[in-house]
């Protein structure tokens, strides 16, 4: 699991690469926590290179979504591959977390 981070025009971009499962969830959770320590209110997860997502990974994403909701911020997931998209559909998470087709569309959604 690789996580990279950048900030542009007040939006924090977090890119996930590899597998977000029970083993990497702790590391990802910490990375997300560090970012949320700043008073960011707009957060975008780029999942284009995320190959695999387990329920432990869903919990990390849910934690971020909840925190953003708490601080009245905006949060979006972008560029999900077919597998990850299916995980969101079957688990019902797609109905509570905004999902955009591309990073560009995601930026528009939370701008």
């Amino acid at each position, binding site marked *: 699991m690789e996580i990279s981070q950048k900030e542009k025009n007040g939006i924090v971009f977090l890119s996930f690469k590899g*597998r977000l*499962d*029970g*083993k990497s969830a702790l590391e990802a959770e910490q990375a997300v926590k560090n970012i949320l320590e700043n008073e960011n209110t707009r957060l975008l997860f780029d999942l284009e290179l995320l190959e*695999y997502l*387990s*329920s*432990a990974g*869903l*919990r990390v994403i*849910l*934690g971020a979504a*909840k925190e953003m909701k708490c601080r009245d911020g905006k949060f979006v997931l972008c560029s999900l591959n077919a597998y990850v998209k299916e995980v969101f559909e*079957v*688990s*019902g*998470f797609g*109905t*509570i977390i905004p999902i955009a087709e591309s990073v560009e569309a995601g930026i528009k959604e939370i701008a």
Partner: protein
Amino acid sequence: MSDDNNENEALLLVDDNPTNLQVLYQTLETTGCKLLVAKNGETALAIAQKASPDLILLDIMMPGIDGFEVCRRLKDNPDTANIPVIFLSALTETKDKVQGLQLGAVDYVSKPFQPDEVIARVNTHLTIHRLKREVEQKKDALEDELEAASDVQRRLLPKKLPEIAGLKLAVHYETSLYAGGDYYDIAKMADNRWGFLVADAEGHSAPAAVMMAMTCALFRSYPKPPTEPGELLYFLNQHLCKVADPSFVTALYIVYDANHHRLKIARAGHPPPMIYRSAEKKAIEYKCGGVFPLGIDSYEQVPVTEAELQPGDRLLSYTDGITERFSIDGETYGEERLLQQLEGDENLEPQELLTAIMKDVDDFANGRPADDDQALFLAIVE
């Protein structure tokens, strides 16, 4: 130089030369450790076995068994294998040092030694050894607690499966070290109707175990017979929302009318059930709408899907620990393999079919241990 932490620790000093041994003794007296001495290899091994010192300073060139051999025997004996050894020797060649370290020694000090250096190294290794021991003790304690939690979880599960006219049941339930909190339960209702609940609490071990226990308590204290699956999940969610942050529980609840072989299914973030149609000899993932998992946010409404079974049909609920079981190559077991297994020999009893499925899952994992709980709940219509 004395270190208060050292008071209860013992060092074993081994040297065949009395003068060297005395110098070493005087040097290390200041550490505050209890000092034991041995003048040859045999005595050193005997003392190490009996007194379990915290550190051994070992000369290499000695008559009888030499220091290398003493070290080898210490490491071969489970009682003494964990005692750190520092070689103290006039042999200063790199190959001697390498040989000593390869035998499992933690350090190598050349003679003649500087007293301060020996004391500093002894203190460092005592600290490392002490911390290592503490970590191991904490790890053992934690594992004991996890095991206790796992025991409690098992006691919450139904003691035995009910006898249902026209339906045969079987379950497989297996926790992993990183228990996530799988749960299944059965409710008996009027008119030969039955409620089958399969749930999976997501989160680190202890919170997941608590969530699983909460789900169990809520299910069993539902104020009326749980005949409406949508209402039941709505109720569980309302209460779990108050505690589950940021954990959640996925659940699949099915009400089965055994007189008419009819099902009502409600699903919260959980994989949909699989149904094997005996007439078509085919298993499918039964599409049913659902809501996100329990414990996140309130629901507006929980959709309910209906289905009907025929004699010979099979109904399987499972947790994602099965389909997300990894092989050595990092591939997941997946739904397709599970569907194929569900199409297995119709003469199999439910428990035999589950055993066959678990064998297939374990064969697929090929020795890679499960890192999530695995639960299967199977019903076959007679």
